[in-house]
């Protein structure tokens, strides 16, 4: 926790790598030096009537050039404001925050991303490749145009699924996961709640222990650092996990999935 920094970072690039998504690259050397895949940043927004910073997973970490990449969709006033930033503009960043993914050495890493849930997995895939591993990345989207191009995952094996069958596996990314799932794997998952629940169901059916699944949680956040107690997800041990402090990346066995329905806002 205590390594997070507060920066007025400079935007160095903005692009639209796929439909419905914006990529923002910012200069924040202190943070780029320490950020881990799965961690997030609180990004200050200066849109009318907004107040709280917006949490975003880091999608790319480049310590050499001091850069961080974020990948997001425009859903409301905050993301709309962020998407209007141009090179040279400044943005307030607090981070890196929370716990990232912690891949274990043995198991075969499978990254499963639904929609913009792919964002933290881009960073994770790059990290795994740099560590000499060969992750399998399963990317699901509504349609082909909303898939991040495969060249964004150099060194990884990339498989895709689309709801409208316009590319890759026809249907849900969980269906695709089913086709490659095996017990000796470790899954890293990010996406909407129904998808997470389907992944848990699949693992249970397959006999893959839940502790071999790491989920990047997405909840409304106030502080991002553990002081507001706003970002809770039901814990298997009773009570709640804080997405910002116990997560966002948590082992799936730590979550009480039977109580999870209400935990997600978006």
């Amino acid at each position: 926790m205590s390594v997070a920094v507060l920066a007025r970072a400079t935007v160095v690039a903005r692009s639209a790598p796929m439909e419905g998504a914006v990529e923002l690259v910012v200069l924040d050397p202190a943070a780029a030096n320490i950020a881990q895949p799965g961690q997030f940043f609180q990004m200050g927004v200066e849109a009318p009537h907004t107040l709280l910073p917006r949490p975003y997973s880091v999608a790319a970490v480049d310590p050499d050039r001091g850069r961080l990449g974020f990948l997001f969709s425009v859903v409301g006033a905050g993301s709309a404001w962020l998407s209007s930033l141009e090179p040279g503009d400044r943005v307030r960043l607090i981070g890196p925050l929370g716990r990232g993914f912690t891949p274990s050495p043995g198991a075969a890493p499978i990254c499963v991303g639904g929609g913009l849930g792919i964002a933290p997995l881009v960073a994770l895939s790059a990290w795994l490749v740099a560590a000499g591993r060969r992750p399998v990345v399963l990317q699901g989207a509504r349609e082909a145009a909303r898939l991040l191009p495969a060249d964004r995952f150099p060194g990884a094996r990339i498989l895709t699924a689309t709801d409208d069958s316009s590319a890759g596996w026809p249907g849900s990314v969980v269906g695709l996961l089913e086709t490659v799932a095996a017990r000796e794997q470790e899954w890293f998952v990010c996406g909407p709640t129904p998808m997470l629940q389907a992944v848990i169901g699949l693992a249970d059916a397959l006999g893959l222990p839940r502790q071999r699944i790491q989920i990047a949680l997405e909840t409304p956040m106030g502080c991002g650092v553990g002081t507001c107690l706003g970002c809770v997800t039901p814990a298997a041990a009773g009570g709640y996990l804080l997405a910002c402090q116990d997560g966002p990346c948590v082992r799936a066995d730590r979550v009480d999935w039977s109580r999870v329905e209400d935990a997600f806002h978006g």
Partner: protein
Amino acid sequence: MADLDCTVDLGRGLRLRTPVLTASGTFAYGFDAPLVDRGALGAIVTKGTTLRPRSGNSPARIAETPSGMLNAIGLQNPGVDAVRREYAPRWAAWDLPVIVNVAGDRLEDYVEVVRRLDGVPGVSGIELNVSCPNVAAGMQFGVDARLAAQLTAAVRAATSLHLMVKLTPNVTELVPIARAVADAGADSVSAVNTYVGMAIDLRRRRPVLANEVGGLSGPAIKPLALHAVWEVVPAVSIPVVGMGGISGPQDALEFLLAGAAAVQLGTVNYVNPNAAREVLDGIRGYALERGWSDLRPFPLRASPVPSHA
């Protein structure tokens, strides 16, 4: 440049080196906000603490609103015993006073919590949260002058610590309640807690918060909170600690001009971890520009004569 004497004496031994405090529920127990410059702080106020641990409300617990946020945390806290055993010893090593915010449903519970904190090294004061709007029956003490006085008197008898009573603004008349708690032995009052509000999710067709209603904080409430302080200050002869929507130096200065002896920063801590430092610097600048050597010239109106000084 001559520097400013920023100290504030809130009474009964609670002396602050600056008039900038963190507000309850926005700083947890003081261990989780490393980006905040503690040098700027006069004290920390903890999360609302109850007799037994509480796991709090189901999510969603927070929602953004125009220039504000709603929260219905539901007093998630580890209970007073964990606080005095695990946290207080760490606080004792700090040069920063910690004020424990105390909440409860029943008068006996409040008294017991305060009793257990009395004399604990590391605990410098009590803020009595008679106003948490999120727990069933949590409103009862704060909206009724007689009950608020009763509670204050009972807690007063249980501790020799500085006793700050935190007012809820969700009342027709705040002044009688402020007077009643002052007369019942409060050393200071803090104003205000959150305003009851709600939001509805259009897609899901239900309230956004699992608790349906929540407390509104942030810049949106500043004009309301400032008015509350403006009303209470001339009505009581004890210090008033102001809060509600302070987002920077200018807001804090408004509260000091309204007569607040100190200010608490809440929601702004989420938005700008530098806020406490910026507020303190702003207070300094304003005072020094006017040639003041301490904070006494701030209030626009003369204070009432202390009734028990």
